[in-house]
């Protein structure tokens, strides 16, 4: 079985973003970029399934400008076998990404498609679901455990009320949650090896998808800042403040 993994290049999760002075967007100049943490978990899961003999090949795909090749190389260093970059201006909307991924999936015919549950820049949490709908295949979002047996995937999902387990007929789309696994670090030899692994570049046009969007970003602002609070020196003072100043306890 082949596994297709979709990864996104995003701002490193440790970096605090700043809004540009003209409020046109956030400032990504000279900011450290990385693999979206959820995508890293998807890559790790695919590589583990290959190591277990469940998968035979892991193909990683990213849609974006040339700079996302850095993240594709990173995924190759973590154990993916080959990479596809679909050239597009950075920041295509989720529907365009899902349409492109659907075309890639039609050509590659993977048994399992893994995505992150959410990109930590847009916080959209929708691409995997859209892809599953376009392919008319089952989905399991927010996965914390994946077992593959006899053409089916048994997936445990983290839902608001607790945990849910679904059984999906393959091919299927699964999006990863944080507790699915702990990604490894790429070793130096693997980073060197990754440089020679195949990386194919395609264009969205070639795949017959237009990436124009009906969603326009009008402006971006800083969230309301909280007033600086105070330090209280004792539990008594805290209780007094909560009772008489904030009036949030009886």
């Amino acid at each position, binding site marked *: 079985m082949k596994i297709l993994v979709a990864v996104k290049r995003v701002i490193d*999760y440790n970096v*605090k*973003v700043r809004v540009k002075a003209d409020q046109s967007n956030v400032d990504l100049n000279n900011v450290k970029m990385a693999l979206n943490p959820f995508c890293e978990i998807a890559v790790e899961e695919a590589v583990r399934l290959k190591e277990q003999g469940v998968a035979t090949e892991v193909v990683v795909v990213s849609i974006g400008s040339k700079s996302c090749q850095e993240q594709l190389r990173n995924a190759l260093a973590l154990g993916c076998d080959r990479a596809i970059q679909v050239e597009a201006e950075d920041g295509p*909307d989720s*529907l365009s990404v*899902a349409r492109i991924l659907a075309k890639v999936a039609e050509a590659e015919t993977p048994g399992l498609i893994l995505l992150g549950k959410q990109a930590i*820049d847009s*916080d959209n*949490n*929708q691409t995997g*679901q859209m892809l*599953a*709908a376009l392919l008319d*295949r*089952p*989905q399991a*979002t*927010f996965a*914390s455990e994946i077992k593959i047996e006899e053409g089916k995937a*048994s997936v445990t*999902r*983290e*839902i*608001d009320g*607790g*945990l*849910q*387990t*679904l*059984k*999906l*007929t393959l091919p299927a789309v699964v999006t990863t949650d*944080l*507790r699915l696994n702990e990604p490894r670090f790429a070793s130096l030899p693997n980073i060197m090896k990754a440089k020679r692994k195949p990386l194919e570049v395609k264009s969205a046009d070639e795949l017959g998808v237009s990436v124009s*969007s*009906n*969603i*326009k*970003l*009008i*402006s*971006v*602002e*800083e*969230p309301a800042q*909280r*007033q600086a*609070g*105070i*330090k*209280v020196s*004792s*539990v008594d003072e*805290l*209780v007094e*403040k*909560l009772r008489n100043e*904030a009036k*949030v*306890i009886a």
Partner: protein
Amino acid sequence: MSTLVLIEHDNKTLSPVSLNVLNAAKQIGKPITALVVGSDCANVADQVAKIAGVDLVLLADNAAYEHQLAENVSKLLLEQIDPDNKGADAARFSYVLAASTTTGKNILPRVAALLGVNQLSDVMAIESESRFKRAIYAGNAIATVESSDAVKVMTIRGTAFDAINAEGGAALIESLSNVHLSADIEFVEESLAVSERPELTAATTVISGGRGLGNGENFNMLYSLADKLGAAVGASRAAVDAGFVPNDMQVGQTGKMVAPELYIAVGISGAIQHLAGMKDSKVIVAINKDEEAPIFQVADYGLVGDLFDLVPELEGKII
């Protein structure tokens, strides 16, 4: 042109968050149709019909919908929105809303893709018929976006809208008989947390514990304080990852969004991903032994010290 709201429920009762979503729908200002999908859920439809502002209730009550699997529910929604399969431009509804919960997030993007439109996730303000605000980058920036899609599909951040009045309405209930049942997906099991305490996202007071609690047993301190305050108990990702508490308690960018009157963070450092889920709380209290912990930058009242001394003392001093 009207608005379709997918109602959140557990087949017996309406989830409180639906009242917030209906308020967002009301702000859009078009007639509201509420869709209740489930099994043996006629009760929920009755509750929804009584909500002021709901014009029509559609009820799809069938065993096939018991677990509201996205594959099935999305097709049912599509059939309502675009009955003649003519595309988004000819749709019966111009807005489709659901709560930004794991249920809404699971189903709605599928509906958007089937319709060929985008989805706006976790909307926190309705600015006009086509302009909306939503948080991006873990809440470190607020984007105003404009959608020219013929159908605007949106998940709604419950904490950003007040609840609509649950009484005073008398909408008609119309049953839907068509059933969508995918053979490619099967529900196996569910283990749902049962708690006597209020639900995290609806509670007026939330007490959350972090890695500083040390283990799951120590959370008992928070539970007994919570019971005195009528509070819900949440947790940081680190506390969940370490196995102290189950995943449904995680507050943050990738967990639950909460905005109670009072949020008490105990042994939590205040990483941006945690702040994303609670910094809209009205009053924030932080208890942490590290006076440099970033949580103090958002706390109205900070108490520096050992939580193992301070939490029991606090409990003792609350009536």
